C-alpha cells in the first residue's frame, strides 16, 4: 500500500512535480517510516477503542490510560537494568497493560456497581492521568523525575529494553509488528471466541443479551479493563520503541486519534490496521506541512473531525443501521 502523507503531498505541490513522477517522491522510505512510527500507538489505541465501542461501552479515556501505561512501563524500564532484554521488554509491556487497566478500573467499577456513564468518567480520568504524570516527572520534585534535568522528564529506560528497529536507518521499530499482531489477536477474540460472541451480543442488543443469560455487567467490566490495558500498551510500545523516556506532553492526542481510527474501521480491530495509516500519515505530515507551507498543523485535527462528521452523516450507513438496529424499548431516548 502506498501512503501519501500530508508532507509529501505538500512537497509535490511545491515542487510542481507531475503525478507521473510522483511515485519516486511518494515512495520515500523515511517518510513512510515516520508514518509507520506515528501509526503504531494510534493503531493500538484504535484497537482499544474499537473493542470497547463494539460492546457499547464508550471508553474515550485511551489518552489517560496511555499515559499511565507509559509511566508503568518507564518505571519497569528504569529499575530493571540488569535483566535480559526480552524479559525486560515483556515485563514493561505487562506493566503498561496493568497501568492502562488500572486507569480504567475506577470508571469500570463505577459502571459495574452504580451504572455511572463511562463516557464522562473515562474522559475525566484523562485529565487526572495526564496531570498525575506531570507530577511524577515534575523537575526536581517528582518521584520519577530525572534528578538533574531542567525539563519535565524521567531518566531514560535501560538500553536493553529498547525495541529493535525493523527498517534499517529509520526509527521504525518492532512495535508496529506488535500492534498489527495484537489487532489480529483481538479480532480473533471478538470473532471466534465465546467471549467475543457475548461481547458483540451486549453491543448489538443489551436487552436480548441479558435475556439470553449473558452477564452483561461483568462482561462490560472485563472488556473495559481489557480496552484500558491495550491503550496502556500503546504507551508502553511508544516509550520502548521511540521516546525511551517519559516526557511531558508525551502524546499529542494518540488516545483521541484512536477514536477516529476505530470509527473509520467500523469498530473492527483488524480494520483499524487499515485506518490507522491514514491518521498516522496525517500526524506524521503535520509538522512538515507547517514548516513547508505555513499551514497550521491543527489542520490535521480539523480533517479528522470532518472525516468523522461526514462518516456519520452518510445516508447509506444510516439505512444499514436502521435495518439492523434492535428497536429500543425506551423509545427515542439517548441511552438506547
Amino acid at each position: 500500500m502506498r501512503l501519501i502523507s500530508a508532507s509529501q503531498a505538500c512537497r509535490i505541490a511545491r515542487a510542481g512535480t507531475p503525478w507521473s513522477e510522483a511515485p519516486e517522491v511518494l515512495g520515500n522510505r523515511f517518510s513512510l517510516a515516520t508514518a509507520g512510527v506515528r501509526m503504531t500507538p494510534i493503531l493500538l489505541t484504535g484497537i482499544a477503542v474499537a473493542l470497547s465501542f463494539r460492546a457499547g461501552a464508550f471508553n474515550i479515556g485511551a489518552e489517560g490510560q496511555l499515559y499511565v501505561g507509559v509511566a508503568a512501563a518507564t518505571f519497569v524500564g528504569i529499575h530493571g537494568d540488569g535483566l535480559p532484554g526480552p524479559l525486560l521488554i515483556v515485563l514493561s509491556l505487562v506493566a503498561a497493560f496493568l497501568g492502562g487497566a488500572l486507569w480504567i478500573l475506577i470508571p469500570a467499577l463505577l459502571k459495574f456497581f452504580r451504572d455511572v456513564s463511562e463516557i464522562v468518567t473515562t474522559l475525566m480520568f484523562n485529565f487526572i492521568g495526564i496531570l498525575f504524570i506531570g507530577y511524577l516527572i515534575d523537575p526536581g520534585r517528582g518521584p520519577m523525575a530525572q534528578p538533574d534535568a531542567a525539563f519535565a522528564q524521567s531518566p531514560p529506560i535501560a538500553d536493553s529494553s529498547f525495541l529493535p528497529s525493523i527498517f534499517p536507518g529509520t526509527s521504525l521499530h518492532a512495535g508496529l509488528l506488535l500492534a498489527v499482531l495484537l489487532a489480529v489477536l483481538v479480532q480473533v477474540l471478538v470473532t471466534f471466541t465465546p467471549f467475543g460472541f457475548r461481547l458483540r451480543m451486549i453491543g448489538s442488543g443489551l436487552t436480548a443479551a441479558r435475556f439470553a443469560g449473558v452477564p452483561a455487567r461483568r462482561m462490560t467490566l472485563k472488556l473495559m479493563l481489557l480496552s484500558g490495558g491495550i491503550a496502556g500498551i500503546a504507551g508502553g510500545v511508544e516509550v520502548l520503541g521511540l521516546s525511551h523516556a517519559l516526557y511531558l506532553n508525551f502524546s499529542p492526542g494518540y488516545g483521541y486519534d484512536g477514536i477516529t481510527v476505530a470509527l473509520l474501521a467500523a469498530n473492527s480491530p483488524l480494520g483499524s490496521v487499515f485506518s490507522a495509516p491514514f491518521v498516522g500519515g496525517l500526524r506524521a505530515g503535520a509538522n512538515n506541512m507547517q514548516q513547508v507551507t505555513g499551514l497550521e498543523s491543527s489542520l490535521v485535527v480539523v480533517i479528522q473531525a470532518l472525516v468523522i462528521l461526514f462518516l456519520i452523516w452518510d445516508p447509506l450507513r444510516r439505512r444499514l443501521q436502521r435495518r439492523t438496529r434492535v428497536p429500543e424499548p425506551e423509545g427515542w431516548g439517548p441511552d438506547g
Partner: protein
Amino acid sequence: MADASFVVDVGDAAIRSATPLATATIGGVVCEKSGVFNIGIEGMMLTGAFTGVVASYAAASAGLPTAATLLVAVTAAALAAMALALVHGLLCITNRADQIVSGIAINLLALGGTSMLYRKLSPTLGQERVTGFDPLPLPLLKDIPAVGPVFFEQSLLVYLVYVLPFLVALVMYRMRWGMALRSVGDFAECADAAGIQVRRTRYLAVLFSGAMAGLAGAALALGAVKVFMPNMTAGRGFIVARSDRRRAVGPAARRARLRPVRPC
C-alpha cells in the same frame, strides 16, 4: 484582617470562574432533558470564546462604544456556537447518528479550527487584551460586608447567571413548553402521540444549549483574561456535560425521575 480579604478574593474568583460552568450547564441540562446528549459543549464553548474575542477586537477596532462592542461579541459567540449545535442537531436528530460520536467530532472540529484560526490571526490579534466585561458593582448590595464584594461586584454575565437558572426552571417546570420538552426527553413516542413536535422541540433545545455554551465561552474569555488561548476551555465543557446528574449519579437519580405510565 488579612484573612478576611483573602476569603473575599477567593470567593470573588470562585464566582467568576463558576460563571462559564453554570451558564453552559443550564444549556446542557435543557438539551439532555429533551433527550439529546450534548458532549460537544466543550467545543461550542471554545468556539464561543474564540468568536467572542475576535468579534470584540473587530468591533472595538471599528470604533464601536464599549457596550455595543460587548453586545456584538456576545451575540457573535452565541451564534457561532449555535452553528455547531445545528450540526449536532442535524446529525443526531434528523440523521439519528450516534450522539457521542457527533459530539466528539464537534469538539475536535472546534479545537482544531480555533487553534488554526488563532495562529493565523495572532499577528493582528496579538496578546493584547480585547474589550471585555468589567466589574459592575451594584449600588446598595455591594455595601453588604463580605457578601457584597464577593457577589455584587461582578460583571454583567455573572449577574445573568444569578437570574437565568430560575428563569429556565420556571419555563421547564411551570410552563407548557417546559413540560413538552421534558416529555420529549422522557418518552418521545408518547409526546409524539400527544401532538408535540418531537424533532422541533429537540432542535430548539440543542440550539439553546449551543447558545448557552457560546455565552459560557464568552464569559470565560471576556470575563477575566480578555484574551483567547488555544484550548482555553481545557475540559470545562466535559464537566458541564455531566454535572446535570441525570445519569451521572446513577440508579437513585434514575428512580427519582418522573416517568410517564408506560403503555400510552
